[in-house]
Each structure stands twice: as structure tokens, then as C-alpha cells.
């Protein structure tokens, strides 16, 4: 299936290669560079590039291209999904997935890749199993290793792969037994000129951090499971039980993992937490434009809207912007024409606004497009869909775990058309 993997950085250097079958010359990447040149933006590189003898499937993450070389028919998503899993694993191991981190840990990376694929077919991709095979580097361990000359490779042979619960390692022990769940929702919305919602969806996930001794069997129930209509689960979740009782019953993997992700589609009514009053005009014949923006909270159930960041790509004709924010700071990049305004927290008593003028290229005709406004925001302690966890129970172990749940709402692709 997957023949080789090349890692290419933003400046076009191949800084890592790994082959699972016969060696494929790195000159195959020339086809990739060619396609990269043709695409104007890095995002526009086609995911699959056919070459005379191979196909290149690439994924761009953290400004690194992960280019897989395949030779014969294989579902492209299979490869893409696997590459993402590789990136996730690196991130899990090194905290970040950057060129420097990979280069510093090149041996661990190589060992990981060796374990994850056998002859191009995925072998062990569960982080719990991998961590048993190859211990992640920590500062302490690196220090100990340099002094004692011991290794990162697990002393004991792993058994997780053989167990009935392949995603959980065995013999887990903690002094503090804790289970934390984060319900994070992102709103994707398009708001039109007049402020009415064109489309709004919610993309939610429940990320868990479970540090429990032994083999706990958890059940998580919701106050309003009806909301979860379109869900995807971590493999540990018992699907039958969910179907029958709408209860999440699972033996969790050890550590951090994504328990489930859900999608509340545009057919449902989605609350929009902020509104924007905007007035962006360009007058014909004058080299000035007016810019006026006011933000306000809406449907937030009394919670504060924080970390608000407004950004907008202004038309090419705009030379500069001379604006006056009532709070926060704004920047305008005259090259990319990107305006961004870091608002911070919205105070409902004193609504933040950004007013001023834009100077246009003299003599140029008025731009016929209006910019769209992208908004980022955060609301703590609330899931905008109204999802609420009812209770978490643990079976199979005697101790009493500490349980915690956190809600958060963020803006995903939240766009206002003007």
C-alpha cells in the first residue's frame, strides 16, 4: 500500500524519508514540487498527484508536507487518514509537530513509523499501544538517558496489542484517579448582509483526559441525548448500547483521546452568539472609504463572550486604513490587505466598535466587492447547542475517581458577508 513517505518543509527540502518496501528515489518528489509551483497557494496543491510510476498523496499540516508514495490502487482517504494519524501521533509524542521537533527526535520518529506500518499496511496506530512500545521523550527521560545510556524503547514487551481491549494499555496505575471531559463546540455560520443567518452548523467534540487505575468501565449519560443525531465515536464506545439507551458506555484508553464528535446540522436552529453592525462603503470618485463596525452579544445565555478576534480581507484597492477602536488593538497589513482587530471581551454595556476611514488608490475605480468579516470568539461554561452531560459512572473498579466536565463554545468558520 504505502511505499514510502517523504517529509518536505515549507522551503522545499526533503528532511526525512522512510521506505517500507523497495527504496523509491527521492527524485519522485520533483513531480510534487512541480505541482506545488503550479498551485498558487499551498492549500491548492492537489491531494493526489499521478506520476508515471507512482502516485503521490500529500497532506499539509503544520507547514510540513507529508508526501506518501503509493504504487497501486488504494482508497486515497485511507492514505490521507493514515497520514493525519501519523501527524497526530507526532504531536502526541513531541507536543508539537514541527520540522525542528522531528529532526531532534529523528530516531523516535523512525521507530514510530516502523511500528505504525508493516509493508505499507497499518499495524499499530493506537497511541496507547505505541506508547508501550516506544516511550515518548520527556526532558527527564532524555536527561536520564544521556547519563545512564538507557533507552526510549520499552523494557517490557507490550501486551496491549494482544488484549481484548486493544486501545487500552494494561497495568495502569495512578495515585490520583481523574477523568476530565471537555465539551467543545464550534459554530460554523454564514451571516448575510442584513444580519440573518444563511447557514449555521455546530461541530462538537468531547475530548477526554482519563487517568484511571486498572480497567474502569465508564458510562456517560446526557440530559438531552436527542441532540446527538449525527455522531462519530472512538472505537471504544459500545455502539449497541448507544443505539438502545443513548448512553455512552466504554472502557477508555489511557490518557487523552477524543471520545466522540458530533454535528448539529443546518436544519436545526442554531443560536448565534454575536451580532455585527457594519457599514463599509466606498464612494465613487473619492479616494476615501468609510469603515464602521460594532459588535454585540446575542443569545449567549448570560455568559461572557471572550477572546474575540475580527479579521477581514479588504479589497485590493485599499492602501491603508485609519481606524479607531473603542477597545482592543487593530492591525492592517498593506501587503496582504488583511485587517485584524483583537477585541478581547465584549462588554454588553459598552459595545466595542471600530470606526474610521480607508484610503484607496487615487484614481482607481471603486472596488465592486465588499469584504467578508471573519470572527473568532470563545464562550466558557456553555455549549451553544445546549448539550449537557447528566452523569458519569464507573464500574469495574473500587476507588472513587475525581470527575470533571468543562464546556466551551468557539467560533469555527464564522463569516459575515457585507
Amino acid at each position: 500500500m504505502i511505499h514510502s513517505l517523504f517529509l518536505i518543509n515549507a522551503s522545499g527540502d526533503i528532511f526525512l524519508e522512510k521506505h517500507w518496501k523497495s527504496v523509491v528515489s527521492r527524485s519522485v518528489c520533483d513531480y510534487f514540487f512541480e505541482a506545488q509551483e503550479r498551485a498558487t497557494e499551498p492549500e491548492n496543491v492537489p491531494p493526489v498527484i499521478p506520476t508515471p510510476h507512482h502516485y503521490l498523496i500529500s497532506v499539509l499540516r503544520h507547514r510540513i508536507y507529508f508526501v506518501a508514495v503509493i504504487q497501486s490502487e488504494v482508497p486515497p482517504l485511507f492514505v490521507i487518514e493514515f497520514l493525519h494519524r501519523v501527524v497526530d501521533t507526532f504531536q502526541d509524542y513531541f507536543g508539537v509537530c514541527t520540522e525542528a521537533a522531528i529532526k531532534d527526535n529523528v530516531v523516535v520518529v523512525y521507530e514510530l513509523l516502523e511500528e505504525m506500518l508493516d509493508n505499507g499496511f497499518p499495524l499499530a496506530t493506537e497511541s496507547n499501544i505505541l506508547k508501550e512500545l516506544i516511550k515518548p521523550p520527556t526532558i527527564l527521560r532524555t536527561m536520564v538517558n544521556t547519563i545512564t545510556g538507557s533507552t526510549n524503547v520499552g523494557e517490557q514487551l507490550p501486551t496491549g496489542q494482544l488484549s481484548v481491549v486493544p486501545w487500552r494499555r494494561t497495568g495502569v496505575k495512578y495515585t490520583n484517579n481523574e477523568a476530565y471531559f471537555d465539551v467543545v463546540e464550534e459554530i460554523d455560520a454564514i451571516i448575510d448582509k442584513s444580519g440573518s443567518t444563511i447557514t449555521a452548523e455546530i461541530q462538537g467534540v468531547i475530548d477526554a483526559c482519563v487517568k484511571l487505575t486498572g480497567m474502569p468501565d465508564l458510562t456517560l449519560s446526557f440530559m438531552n441525548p436527542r441532540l446527538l443525531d449525527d455522531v462519530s465515536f472512538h472505537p471504544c464506545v459500545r455502539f449497541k448500547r448507544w443505539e438502545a439507551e443513548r448512553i455512552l458506555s466504554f472502557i477508555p484508553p489511557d490518557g487523552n483521546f477524543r471520545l466522540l464528535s458530533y454535528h448539529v446540522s443546518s436544519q436545526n436552529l442554531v443560536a448565534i452568539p454575536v451580532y455585527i453592525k457594519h457599514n463599509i462603503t466606498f464612494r465613487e470618485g473619492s479616494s476615501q472609504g468609510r469603515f464602521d463596525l460594532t459588535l454585540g452579544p446575542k443569545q449567549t445565555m448570560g455568559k461572557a463572550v471572550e477572546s474575540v478576534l475580527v479579521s477581514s480581507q479588504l479589497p485590493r484597492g485599499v492602501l491603508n486604513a485609519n481606524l479607531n477602536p473603542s477597545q482592543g488593538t487593530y492591525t492592517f497589513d498593506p501587503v496582504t490587505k488583511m485587517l485584524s482587530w483583537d477585541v478581547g471581551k465584549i462588554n454588553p454595556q459598552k459595545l466595542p466598535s471600530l470606526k474610521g476611514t480607508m484610503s484607496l488608490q487615487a484614481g482607481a475605480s471603486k472596488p465592486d466587492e465588499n469584504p467578508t468579516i471573519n470572527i473568532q470568539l470563545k464562550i466558557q461554561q456553555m455549549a451553544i447547542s445546549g448539550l449537557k452531560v447528566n452523569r458519569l459512572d464507573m464500574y469495574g473498579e473500587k476507588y472513587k475517581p475525581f470527575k470533571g466536565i468543562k464546556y466551551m463554545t468557539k467560533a469555527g468558520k464564522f463569516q459575515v458577508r457585507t
Partner: protein
Amino acid sequence: MPSIVIWCQQQFEILICLILWLITKSYSNSIPITFCVNKTVHAYLYSTLPQAANFQCFSSLRHDDLKEMLDSNKDSLKLEAMKRIVAMIARGKNTSDLFPAVVKNVACKNIEVKKLVYVYLVRYAEEQQDLALLSISTFQRGLKDPNQLIRASALRVLSSIRVTIIVPIMMLAIKEAASDMSPYVRKTAAHAIPKLYSLDPEQKDQLIEVIEKLLADKTTLVAGSVVMAFEEVCPERIDLIHKNYRKLCNLLIDVEEWGQVVIINMLTRYARTQFLNPNMNGSDKTFYGSDEDEDEEEEEEKDKKPYVMDPDHRLLLRNTKPLLQSRNAAVVMAVAQLYFHLAPKAEVGVIAKALVRLLRSHRFTEVFVLSSCRYVSQGMFEPYLKSFYIRSTDPTQIKVLKLEVLTNLANETNISTILREFQTYIKSMDKDFVAATIQAIGRCATNIGEVRDTCLNGLVQLLSNRDELVVAESVVVIKKLLQMQPEKHSDIIKHMAKLTDNIQVPMARASILWLIGEYCEHVPKIAPDVLRKMAKSFTNEEDIVKLQIINLAAKLYLTNSKQTKLLTQYVLNLAKYDQNYDIRDRARFIRQLIVPTEKSGALSKYAKKLFLALKPAPVLESPFKDRDHFQLGSLSHLLNAKAGGYQELPDWPEAAPDPSVRNVEVKDSVRAVGTVIYRDTGSDSASGSESGSGIEESGSGSESEESEEGSESEEEEEEEKEKDKKKKKKELKKKCLILHFVCRYIKYVLNSHANMYRPFLHLLLCLQTISPSSALKSYEMLHRITGEGLSVEYCFSRQPFSPDANMVAVQMQFTNNATSDTKNLHMEDVKLQSGMRVKEFPEIELLPAGEMVTAVMGIDFCDSTQAANFQLCTHTRKFFVSIQPPVGELMRPVFLTENEFKKEQGQLMGMNEITEKITLDVKCRNEHSIVQRVITAANLSRVPCGSDKECRFAGRTVTSSSLVLVTVATKEEGAAKLTINCEKMVIGTMLVKDILLALTQ
């Protein structure tokens, strides 16, 4: 030996001089130097050093150093060396000269060194075949290791070494590993198969044998890997799948994600060869909707053979559906394509939701899902229309794909929303995207007649746009649209004629000229004027425009020669001396055709017909069409070109191949839990339906006898003719009689030599308790009226429930009295008192109309008579049902001798003893009938007893194993004393009531 280590970080220009100097020095002195240089210096060295001796010595010297480290006996040094070697491999440096030094360490004790050596070995073995052989013996030893993980890893590396000489060794190792005890090793064996195959394809036949063996494996660990091997080695041997088909379907949900993808893709192909096309009847009617539908269908098409989906086909669809909820996009996509290719049209819709969800994952996934969506779009995604709306921040690639999907989704009802949305896109800053939008509008307009005028008006407005690209694209699209109804739109043509002054984009100019030429009759006054202007600028035009000017001139000459004769001549003369010879050719050709001379042939008469023929309107099509023949979600489909190793998706067969090839002989262990479905082969398969898993040797014999009878009595019900019924009954009675006599005889023998024949007592016990099934009282769970044709009866079969000894076996009999089939019978929503447990019966996939099926489930009642409530679900309905056990069923018989009985009874006195005086029923005054009645009421066994005035019975409760002792002492004239000794007082009191009732009525 002295060594110099140089660290250079900054000021590298100076350092490089130093290094160069040192290199030359060390070359003569042979002092090993280690250069720890940073990347820039490194690159600099590469570029500046002449590729001659100097650099050669530089690298080999460094390797010398590594060799030394590898040869040392310190693990830490070895490790350091290996780490550096691996880092070099990772950067693509050649380290093959170190091979001998590295391979020596293959047997190193240090596990990390060993691992890194493996990495190295696998990378370079191909290049250094002879030396690689040195390492083989290590792996051969590893293959025999008691630790399964070491065995597996040895096989993994051994099979990864691509050296042809060791093919026989690999073959042997794979064969051995395929029958290893550990499933993990078997999985590795499955992985090794394609490796060996790619190394030596001649081993195919032997490998297929191994694959066949591994396919029969029942563990989820192996399933994915072996199917992968199957796909790589012998995808054409579909016959190997038959026997494993059902197993694979059932295991699927527990297989790891990557295996799921492979299995689903393979099963899609398999299903295409084995089942009938569910959509073949041509009607879109669903056959699997509500029952009423089905009934009507049957009535209507009685003479036609209605399509009935093969239950195995249904099994596949049902078992893959939950995987749409997988977190892995590849799995979701695989299921989606399976439904797309295999499911009846009415059911394909379920994949839409899952695919829309995938849109929110990583961007390349989004690209891919979108490009798949556009083929599936018809109607299915309509509810999700808004999920495809475009954001200004989307990359162009995605914008274009979304536009494609939106255009495909457009229909009469939603076109106005879509067009409104398109209008905002036209204002976008991304001009390529705007152009794509205009094309999309054009496509919508051609497909949906109602909005053609609106679209046209909108596009005409765009003609005044400031951006030339937008205008040009609109002109091209308008041209195509106008061709459909030119007569209505002469004003638009006039408007466009005016545009020729401004528009510079050649394609747009050419389009306008063509349009004017084609419809010059509609604009008789303007056309010659346009030609005049064009003639003026002819020399400065692009080729494509020039050709259209000639075209226009020719057409005008034919329709309006009076005004344009001279102009045409002029244009043709200009063209005659053009640089492009296409244009010169065209001019010459047209002149001959239209200008009548003496020499001109017969063709000029037809010139008008040639030029002004009615042209068919163009069909605006998506550039992505005709990919239907590739399997959705495959690489070939994405590229629209057959990739190597692509397996064609076969067409549905005309007639279904024999479905019985998938039948598998059910083994005993499976059968104990399993259900028996009578639809398969009639009565044969019914025999030996359920049996205890043979706890007692002697027990099994009698049980099978019993079940034979059981099946016969069931058959009896199926029989319709009275005669047969009577005959059967006679036979049955005969058998009962024989049984009875055997019992009697054994009892006699046993009573005299109790201890000696103890083993036989179990037989007796079985014979007695498991009396013909008619004696088992059956209860109604679901009446056929409330169950809408489905009736369910249950009885306590009094057999040990083998999966769990603490459970009471409940045998259920499902009868389908309805005229339609019932599917997917299973349990849901079990509500129990605390402590109670239920082992559900396996789902019954299909219960054909008029048929009957039995299934066994186990319930642990916790020694209480609390009912077990649950829902019985079919594919259409759910019924609330409950099972309440009579107290007598909560025990199992045990055998005690008379002495043991008395001893036990002595310990259960006082509170634990309940006594009741009774008067026996008139019909029940002999020993035999008392025994009969007590045993019917409670699942107890008789204890041999010296006196014939007393009958004793013993049993233990199922859950807590507390003894239950029953004594019936008869006196004269039907008076009797019933004594029950039991630790559990509640059970005791209840049992007294039940037995009392049984004996007195």
C-alpha cells in the same frame, strides 16, 4: 588513536577553511575526525568541496568512526552509532558501506540497538544480499521463541528482507506462523504473505493455501490483515470468501479501522458477483419499507417473480451501517461506497449525513469527499444544501468543487436559493472562482428551463462589470444560452454587439462575433457595422477572433451581399496574407465557397446551407462526467484513470449464484448459543438443534434423542394433513413408552446399587427431567394479534445453559403467522432488577412468512421470580414483553442418595423447613403420578427411596446453589404431607404453593 571533534556553530566561513585544512591533514595522518556541523555548514561543504577524493575521504572517515563504535562492546556506544546511522538513513544519506559492521549486531542483547539494526537491515538487505544472509539464523531462532511477540517480530523482519534466496525459508516460516497459537503471530503471517508474493510471484499457489487457512480464522486481529493479503495476492479467487462471508460480516465491527476499510472494499466486490441487483425491477418502490407496501407488492406482482433480497446481502448492509459512525474518514467513505454500489436506491440516503459530517475534517479529506459527493449528489444531499455553501476563506480547489455539488443539486424547488447564493459569489475577489460561478449559472440555466430567462438577465447585467474576466466568461455562457432560443433575445445580441468596442478577451470577442454572424437576420442593421469595425482592426486581433471575423464576413455575404460584398473582399484579402496559415487556408476555402466564379464547383450553390444550417444547442456539462464505471472512493475514480492493481467492480449477475455456498456447518459450541432457522434445508438441519455443550457424557445421548423428538413434534405442527399427524403421534407415543420402560429399568438397577452406578444416574436424571417437550409447559410471550402476526411462546427447556451456568435457559419459539417476512428479530432495552443478567439470543435475521424458529436465551433471575422485561424488536416494530419464571424453574436437579438426602435434610430444619398437610387429587394417588406432577411443577430430580410411601426430590437453585429438598409422604385415603427444606425461605414458601397446587388439582 587520537581523534578530533569539532563543533562549529557560527562563523562558519572561517571554520570551513579550518575543516578543509584538517581534512587534508587527516587524510595523510589518518586521524578520525568527527564533524558535528550544523545544517548550513553541511550544505556549504557539499557545494564547495570538489566531488573528488577529498569528500570521499571525508565521509568514509566518519563511517570509520561509526564502525569503531559498533565494534565496541559497550551498548551505549553501539546505540549512539546506530542512532546516528538511522538519522543518516532518514535524511537519505547512503550508509551501505557500514552493512557488515551493523549486521554483526543483529544478535545484540540491547533491545533498542536490536530494533535499530532491524531498521537498517530492512533498508539495505536488498543491496547486500550475501551479507544479509548472515543475519537469517538469528531470525530463525527468534521464530521458535516462546514469547509470541518475539516470534512475531522475527517473522516481520525476516519477511521484510527482500532477498530471493531465502524465499523457501520465508515460505516455511509463514506456513508455521499461520498455525501459531497466538493470533498476533498469525496476523504477522498474514502481513508477510504479500511481501513474499512481491518477492517471488511463483509462490502464489502455496500462498493461496495459507490465505485460505487464515481466512478461516475467527479472531478479529487476523481478519483485516488476511483480507489485505487476499486482495494483493489473489483477488480473483472470490470462491475463497464464500465460507467466510458471514463470519467476516459479523466480525467487521470489531476489526481495527484499517482492516475494516479493506474488508468492506473486498465485500463490495464480492456482493456484486453473488447477489442480484436490488434495483433491477426498475421501480423505485421500496421493497423494504412498511409491511403493507410489501403485501400490495406481492398481490400485484404475483405472476412476476418479486425480488427478494438475499439475507446475506441484507446482513452485509446491516452490519456495515453502524460503521458510518466511525471516527475514521476512510471507513465512513468505504461504507458510503458500499451503500452506493450495493444498497437499494431507497436506502442509499443514509450515507449523506455521514459524508456531510466528513466535510468538516481536514482539508484534503474535504477535497476528496467533495469530489466523491458530486457523483452521488442526485437528491440525496438536498437537505444538506447549505452545508455546501462557500466561504470566502475556502481555497479555490474547494470552492470549485462545492460549486459543482451545488449545481448538481439544483432543481426547480431550490434553484432560487441557489441563484441568490451564486449572486454573492459573483462579487467575490477570487476571479477564477467568479468565472466558475458564471459557468455554474449557465449550467443551472440549461438544466432548468424555468430560470433560463432570469439567469440570462443576470448574466447580461454582469456584462457591465468592470472586471473583464467576468464579462468575458458571461459572454461565453450567454452565447451558449442564446443558442437555445435566439429569436427572443435580439436585444441581448444588440447589447453584446456594442460590447465589441470594449471587451478585449479574445474568447469573448470571438463568441460575440459568432453570435452576430449566426443570428445576423435578427440584427440586420448592426451586423454589417460590426463587420466594418472588425475589418478595421483585423490585423491586430488574435487568431481565434480573426477566424470568427472571416466567419462573420462569409455569413453576411450570403445574407446581405449588397452591403457587405466589398467588406468581405477586404477581409478575405487581409486574411490571405496573414501569418497564420490556418487563417490563410480558411480565407482561401471560404472565398472559393461563397464568391461565385466560373471555376467554382457545385458546392457554392450549397454555401448558404452549409453556413447557416441550424446548429443544435450545446449541452452544458460538468467537466467531471463519465466516471461512473470506477468504484466510488477509489484512487482510479478520483483520477478518472485506471490505477495499477485496480479491481473492476463487476456488474450484477443476471441470476443469483447458488447462495448455499455460504452455508457453514455450525459447530457444537456455536450451536449451544445459536438459533436454528428452519428455512435452510428443511427438517435435516433441525435435528440436534440445541444441546448442552456436553457437560455430562451420558447426558448428550439422551438429549439428542430428546431434541429429535422435539423437532418431530414441531414438524408435526407444520404438517397439515390429518393422517400424517396421527401417524406421527403414534410414533411419538411409542417412543415415550420405550423411554418410560428404559427409565423404569434403570431406576430399578440403580436403586439396588446406587453408588456403583452413580454416573448412570445422570442419565436417569436427564431422561426424567427432560421428558418429551410436550410436557414442558409453554407460556405465551406475544400473542399473534398484538404481535401483528408474530407470535412468541417460551418455555423453560430445563437444560443447562452452557454459556453461563448461573442462567436459566429459556427456549423461545417464534412463529410468523403474517403474510410477509419478519426480519432482524432481536432484543433491546432489557430492564432488569438489580443483579439479574440476561444473555440475549443471537439476532434472527429472517423469519419467512409462515415459518417458525426457535432460539435460546439465558436469564439469571437471581433466585427471584421477578420478571425480565425487554423489548422484542423486528425490523419494523418493537414489542414490550416479559418473562416471568415460575419458582420451580429457578432450580436445577441434583442427584443425591438417600443417605445424603437425609443428612442434608437434617441440616435444614427449623425455619428452613416448611410442612403442609394436603389431600391428593383423586387421579394422583399413585407414586408415578405424584412424581410426574412434582417434576412438572419444579425442575427437581427424584431421590431414590426405600419406602414407596415417600417420594423425595432434590435440586439446587440456579444462582446461589442452595439446596431444595422436597418430600411427599403419602398416607391413606389421599392424605399426604409435603415437606420442603430450603435455605431460601422465600423460594421454599413459593415452591410449597406451586407443588400444592400441582398435587391437589
